[in-house]
């Protein structure tokens, strides 16, 4: 059997995007939740809980973009112009929140300003990513190897819904992260928020899932055609399982379980999107094979990726391990 390089690469890119979504997801979520924690000492602890890792988390976004350029240049060259506005907003928002990590410790007078910048940046980045995802799901027209749609095509009720959904989902990740990493008042409040955002996240997943099949007959067939429904039926079952574990963790005070279950919800949602897309990479215009760079490019980078990605995962895991456990509220380099 011949090795299907574009398919392998689609898997690696999907993995990078998923890694980005869940890792930057929780630290964006912490930013989204800042308004619910008005006390300075709470915010200090919250920010210190993600400060050592946010930078690595965001690197997965660069891998997603850079990887797409390397192995699916046509997808990169059509998706980004189609999502011009949401991508630009996301980039600007990431600037506002990224610098807040350092700036807010450098000033007393303007501290609230950088808190605002952190909140607005995190929320806008999450929203823009959700909108971009929705716009991608609803399809991008391509002609002559170029984006062939209008400048406002990305803005639809559906993409706004996915934008809101992702903000809520990230808030859930952030809340369960805080449950896991903090103690005392912050943890109590975070547990309450986690409870509400879990319910809201699942409602949103339901709404998006109900809407998606009607965007394109392809999706309808993919989800509800026979025998696909046997497999796609497993996704809601998995969601129910994660919901159960999440609640159990919250009520029984098993503080790691909610975070892992919330990650599970994201993985399932991601698989759902994957089922809808395949074999397209730009739905429903360009397939994985059409967008792929020549095999020489795919092999060259694959050799490195097979060696380097496990190493990256190893030292990323190590970095998380170094900062494991509950936060000591008095620690932090700042």
């Amino acid at each position: 059997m011949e090795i299907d390089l574009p398919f392998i690469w689609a898997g690696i890119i999907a993995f990078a995007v998923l890694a980005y979504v869940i890792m930057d997801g929780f630290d964006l979520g912490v930013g989204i939740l800042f308004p619910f924690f008005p006390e300075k000492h709470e915010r200090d602890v919250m920010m210190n809980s993600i400060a050592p890792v946010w930078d690595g988390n965001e690197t997965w976004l660069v891998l997603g973009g850079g990887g797409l350029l390397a192995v699916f240049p046509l997808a990169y060259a059509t998706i980004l112009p189609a999502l011009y506005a949401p991508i630009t907003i996301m980039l600007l928002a990431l600037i506002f929140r990224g610098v807040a990590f350092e700036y807010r410790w450098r000033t007393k007078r303007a501290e609230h300003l950088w808190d605002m910048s952190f909140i607005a940046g995190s929320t806008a980045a999450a929203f823009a990513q959700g909108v971009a995802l929705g716009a991608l799901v609803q399809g991008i027209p391509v002609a002559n190897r170029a984006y062939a749609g209008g400048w406002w095509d990305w803005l639809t009720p559906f993409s706004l819904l996915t934008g809101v959904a992702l903000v809520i989902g990230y808030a859930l990740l952030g809340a369960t992260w805080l449950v896991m990493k903090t103690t005392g008042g912050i943890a109590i409040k975070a547990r309450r928020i986690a409870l509400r955002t879990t319910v809201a996240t699942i409602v949103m997943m339901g709404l998006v899932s109900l809407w998606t099949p009607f965007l394109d007959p392809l999706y309808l067939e993919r989800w509800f055609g026979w025998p696909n429904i046997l497999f796609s039926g497993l996704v809601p079952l998995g969601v129910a399982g994660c919901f159960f574990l999440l609640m159990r963790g919250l009520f029984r005070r098993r503080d790691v379980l909610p975070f892992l279950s919330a990650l599970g919800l994201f993985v399932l949602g991601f698989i759902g999107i994957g089922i809808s897309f395949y074999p397209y990479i730009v739905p429903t215009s360009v397939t994985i094979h059409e967008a792929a760079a020549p095999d020489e490019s795919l092999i060259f980078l694959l050799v490195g990726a097979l060696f380097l990605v496990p190493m990256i995962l190893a030292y990323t895991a190590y970095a998380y391990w170094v900062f494991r456990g509950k936060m000591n509220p008095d620690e932090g380099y700042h």
Partner: protein
Amino acid sequence: MFENFDALLLARIQFAFTVSFHIIFPAFTIGLASYLAVLNGLWIWTRRQVYLDIFNFWKTIFALSFGMGVVSGIVMSYQFGTNWSVFSDRAGPVIGPLMGYEVLSAFFLEAGFLGIMLFGRQRVGEKLHFFATLMVAIGTLGSAFWILSVNSWMQTPAGFAMNEAGQFVPDDWWAIVFNPSFPYRLLHMVLAAYLTTALVVGAVGAWHLLRNRAREKAGVMFSMAMWMLTIVAPLQIAAGDMHGLNTLEHQPVKVMAMEGHYESHPDGAPLILFGIPNSAEQRIDYAIEIPKLSSLILKHDLNAPLDGLDTIPQELHPPVPIVFWSFRIMVSLGMAMATLGLWSFWSRRKGRLLFNRPLQRMALLMGPAGFVAVLAGWITTEVGRQPYTVYGHMLTADSVSPISAPAVGASLIAFIVVYFAIFGAGTFYILRLMGRLREEDLQDDIKEAPIRTAGITPGPPNPHRHEEMLRGN
């Protein structure tokens, strides 16, 4: 409001603006990461407190600059797609994997170990902490390696073929990565980054020495920085010369623009020191020139013929005045750096390095010179390779996305506003941190720093105390 503008021009301005802002941070952090690794190593080796203190001082500044570099860099990695999608589609199979290697081998290394370097000394112990610092330094150099390989390939493309979709496809990866201009450009840029950092470190040291404050720390910084200049500035001039000869071989038109040679010189070209390029008339007005010196520098022969821009169709000329000026700015600053290095060496030999106030004033004045020189150098090479993106094969005008001017214009304005506000604030905070080298400044630092080993106990938080200190100085 942008209907009357050209989307291509706006996209070019946007790229020039965002990449110029971005390069400032790597130019500083590449050198600073290595400096931190050296300081950390010296601390472990000698156990002199001053090295640890300087390390901690620059570590905070590094964190700020690195953060700004990361966020402005993410913009770059997506702007290829939003504004230059045709280029991305066609050149992606060649340059994409190189950037992929940059992310995999360098960005993750930096980002993964940065947290440990900044926050983890107590948690992982000194040895591992030093290892993390080294990894960050190696990561910054690795990212320079790959991104300069990409840029050099665009300047001197090699090792590729074209497919029927019009894409550049890889043929020989070794030839692509180590394309003809890459080794020179890499060396020139890494040395530039080290010089930039040395100038900043030297200026901070000089500032405190001139104020007679924190003399031990300031003195160590100043001395280390001046050693760097003494050794590296002459090397950089030699590397720049080699790079120039390489450019003459592969991109002669760029050199014609740098030299201001509108006309061909069949028997020895003059070195134009100064003058005003006049593109309309295709000549240099008010030129001050040294006969035949350009031929001597470029061809090592006083009478060697040198072609001018008159041998090239006008539509393939780069914008000569920009290249002409930026090249001269870079070279003059390079010479000034070498002068500072030599002067400091002479002063050191006389044992007056830490007391030579005119020298320290010049070092202070030269603090930002590295940034200016790096920008001027990049402007020379990037404007000089116009009108191509992939030199000789793909025009800039054919690379742009099918975008409309209002979309590019609106995002351009947003980037300008945000960058000036955000990076302006960042620069302000960095400058303020640079001013706080003394123990009492550190103790008085506005945030409640929990881990300070020094014996002075911080007083109760008093928001006015800081302002009083500043006024007191």
